[in-house]
C-alpha cells in the first residue's frame, strides 16, 4: 500500500513574491466619536470575533490609536474597508512592505 506523503512545498520563495502578491492590511483608526461598545459590536457582528477578541482589538484601537484587524488579498480587504466605512469607522488599507 502506498503511503501518502505531504505535498511538496510549491509555495514560491518569499523573496520572489511579486509586489502585487503581497498581502493587504485592514487598519481601524481611533476617533473621539465612535462609542467603545459600538466598535466592539461591529468587530463581533461583522468579523465574527468572540466578545473577548473584539474587546481586545477595540481597546488596542482606543489605546494605541489604531489596530491592524486582519490581512488578506486586496479584494478581501477592500470589501472590509467598505464595510467599516458603512459602519462609520475610520478604516484604511495598506499593502505589506
Amino acid at each position: 500500500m502506498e503511503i501518502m506523503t505531504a505535498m511538496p512545498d510549491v509555495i514560491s520563495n518569499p523573496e520572489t513574491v511579486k509586489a502585487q502578491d503581497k498581502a493587504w492590511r485592514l487598519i481601524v483608526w481611533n476617533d473621539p466619536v465612535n462609542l467603545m461598545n459600538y466598535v466592539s459590536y461591529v468587530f463581533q457582528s461583522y468579523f465574527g470575533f468572540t466578545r473577548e477578541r473584539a474587546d481586545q482589538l477595540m481597546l488596542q484601537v482606543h489605546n494605541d490609536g489604531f489596530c491592524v484587524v486582519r490581512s488578506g488579498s486586496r479584494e478581501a480587504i477592500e470589501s472590509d474597508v467598505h464595510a467599516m466605512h458603512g459602519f462609520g469607522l475610520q478604516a484604511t488599507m495598506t499593502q505589506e512592505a
Partner: protein
Amino acid sequence: MAKAFKNGARGITGSLASAERKLLRELFSDVITVLEERAQIHELPEDLDPLYALTGMRPESANLPEPSDAAVKRLLPDASDDQEVADEFRRLTEADLITEKISLLRRAQLLLETEKLVLSVSEAQGFARALNDVRLVLAERLNIQSEADSERIAQLVDAAKVTTSEEYLGLVYNLVSWVQDTLMQALMSAER
C-alpha cells in the same frame, strides 16, 4: 423622556418622547441632505463614452474630488494613505456607500413613527448605524477632534444651563450618544 433600550422576548424595545423622535427624524434628514449633496458631483459628464454611462462605472479620468465638507469626509473617509489607492477606491465605491447610508437613514426615520420602538436585531443594527452617522456629522459641527473635546461636550447635560447654540448642539449630541449607547447594550445582550 426617553427610556433605555432593552432586549426582551419581543425583541429590542425602547421608547422616545414625541419631541425626541421629531428631533431624531430631523437629524437623519440633515445627514441625508449632506449625502445627497455629495452625490450630485457623481453625475457623469454628458460627453462620456455611453458604455461607461450604461454600467454606471466611472472611468479613470473621472476621479472624484475629496469632500470639501469635513463632515462628509467623516462619513466617506479616504480608504488609504496612498493617494492613488484612495482615489481609485473612492471612484469605484463611494456611490454605493452613499446609497447604503441613505437607505439606512430612511429606514431609521420610519422606525420612529411610534412612541414605543420594537426592533428586530437587524433593525436595531441599522438604527445604530444611522445614529452613528448622525453623531459623526454633529461631532464635526461641534469640532470634536480629540478625547478631551469629547469629554468637554459630555459635561453638557443640564438643559437649563444651556445658553449658546453650540451648547444646545452639544446637548443634542449627548442625547444621540445616550440612545446609541443603550441600544448597543441591548444588542450585546441579544447576542448572548
